[in-house]
């Protein structure tokens, strides 16, 4: 029941105004838009009811804190300090005094109201254009109270969409590998958390090595590599039921799994007698199809969003490079030609770019290039980092980074990082433990 929950869109007021505020998303965080997130107003009775159910003193403030944090983390917005707010939340939500908000240089204002109705949480919020003195959007949701953080994420998505003209990515989750223990014998577990690091949960116990989890397009299933019984194989895990199964019956290691965009197939590598090739397996009829047949290492496959093409890395030229081919393995074409080694290609959800890891002169880079290999841009350089995964709107990349140990082999750590496509807003993503192999879900609500 993680993903199927009660969520009713109650009212949708027609939008009467044009977008007057515009966020320049091509420039990253150079000029983040000043925005005031007024705490959502809440009356005493509702407040007490939520306190009883959720043990939260003021749910209105907590939901607006989720929104505020999301906006700040995006790098595109600058949420203003609440200390400067002159208007009370309940009055601001009814009719903002735009002069007051203009005074503190807010260009956009978010207000709202939280009520307890029939054991449910009802949230309404409004987005205001301060300079034009107009309402830009008004929405209301009703859901179960335990979903309150998701309400904050959905509000952020709506605001982000209205102000940038692009889809949001806040009502999403990250699946990753949680790590601990010495570098020579890491204990690894699958873990899942909200995009902002909250609601962290472990999905495996750490009894066997697990690697490279990836979401299905509907976010209900995860495919990953497990060393269960010392047989490295691709597995499927149902997040709701916890059921796990091996994908296919291969007489050797299967690895590097990903779903096809329609969720019907898993594409992966199968290694046998020192050679790794790419295969797909249809999850319905279990038919296995061989996609590449080459004595080199072919791995890290990723479908284009339309499912017509596959990008992968291969060392058929002598070194690890990025290739694309049609979905049946025909028309293989190398696309990376810069200096160094290229790996882990992942097709952008928008279809126009491929993100990758590059190794050159002892440094690791996360970068993007067009699907024909032109326009290579390196976003970040480090001692070790790899495995980018796209946010569902194709704006942000999440990846992992490992530290260099000292001369005694101490000081190892692995952390998740994210960076905007523009190369700005590079930041660490907080996790309870060390973390690697992140994979970003699609939007949970749509």
């Amino acid at each position: 029941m993680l993903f199927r929950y009660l969520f009713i869109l109650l009212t949708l007021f027609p939008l009467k105004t044009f977008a007057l505020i515009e966020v320049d998303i091509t420039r990253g965080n150079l000029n983040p838009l000043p925005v005031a997130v007024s705490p959502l107003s809440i009356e005493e009775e509702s407040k007490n009811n939520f306190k009883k159910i959720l043990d939260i003193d003021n749910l209105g403030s907590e939901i607006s804190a989720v929104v505020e944090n999301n906006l700040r983390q995006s790098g595109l917005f600058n949420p203003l300090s609440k200390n400067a707010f002159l208007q009370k939340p309940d009055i601001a939500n009814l009719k903002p005094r735009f002069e007051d908000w203009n005074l503190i240089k807010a260009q956009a204002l978010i207000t709202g109201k939280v009520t307890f109705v029939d054991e449910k949480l009802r949230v309404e919020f409004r987005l205001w254009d301060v300079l034009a003195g107009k309402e830009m959007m008004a929405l209301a949701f009703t859901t179960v109270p335990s979903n309150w953080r998701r309400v904050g994420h959905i509000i952020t998505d709506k605001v982000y969409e209205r102000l940038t003209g692009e889809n949001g990515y806040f009502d999403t989750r990250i699946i990753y590998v949680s790590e601990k223990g010495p570098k020579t014998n890491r204990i690894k577990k699958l873990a899942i958390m909200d995009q902002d690091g909250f609601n962290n949960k472990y999905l495996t116990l750490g009894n066997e090595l697990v690697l490279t989890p990836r979401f299905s397009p509907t976010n209900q299933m995860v495919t990953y590599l497990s060393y269960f019984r010392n047989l490295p194989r691709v597995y499927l895990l149902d997040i709701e039921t916890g059921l796990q199964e091996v994908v296919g019956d291969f007489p050797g290691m299967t690895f590097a799994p990903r779903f096809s965009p329609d969720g019907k197939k898993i594409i992966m590598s199968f290694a046998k007698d020192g050679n790794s090739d790419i295969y797909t397996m249809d999850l319905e009829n279990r038919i296995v199809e061989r996609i590449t047949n080459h004595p080199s290492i072919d791995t890290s496959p990723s479908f284009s969003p339309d499912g017509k093409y596959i990008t992968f890395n291969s060392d058929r030229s002598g070194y690890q490079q990025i290739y694309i081919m049609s979905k049946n393995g025909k028309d293989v074409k190398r696309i990376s030609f810069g200096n160094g080694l290229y790996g882990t290609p992942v097709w952008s959800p928008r279809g126009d770019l491929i993100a990758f890891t590059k190794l050159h002169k002892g440094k690791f880079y996360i970068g993007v290039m067009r699907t024909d290999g032109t326009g290579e841009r390196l976003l970040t350089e480090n001692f070790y980092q790899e495995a980018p995964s796209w946010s569902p709107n194709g704006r942000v990349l999440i990846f992992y980074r490992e530290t260099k140990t000292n001369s005694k082999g101490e000081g190892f750590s692995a952390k998740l990082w994210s960076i905007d496509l523009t190369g700005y807003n590079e930041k660490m993503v907080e996790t309870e433990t060390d973390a690697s192999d992140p994979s970003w879900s699609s939007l949970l609500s749509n």
Partner: protein
Amino acid sequence: MNLRKTLKNGFLVLLASLVLTACATQKTTTGQLQSDVYTGSDSVEYLASGVADRVFFATNETVLTTASRETLRKQAAWLRKNSKITVVLEGHADERGTREYNLALGERRANSAKDYLLTYGVSSDRISVLSYGKERPVDSGSNPLAWSKNRRSVTVKAN
């Protein structure tokens, strides 16, 4: 008098061991790598007297060196003599590569060792192969020497 002598001797021994340690350290940083392949014995264990359990590889390589082939011939002779023993060849890579590619590389390294054992008369049903990629380094260092110890195929008794 006696005490002073003992102390003096002790001091000399201490001094000597310091000098020796210094030599040993120097050796690890310079003498244990030959064109990128580890030639030392730090992490090496033995399947039987004189039969080393592992072979090492150059960066991104899966070719067996002369020394590796000699080690594997000894392993093959030992396996032929002990015909009931089965082994797992565990292939590994260093940390300077992407995870998935390194899994494939480890598999290729273990198979290159396996192929050599096969040509020296060990039957294939006694050998299985398991790649750990970069997941199980023996040396947690982030330097060329540590990486060279980690690029390996280890023959492990399975029964």
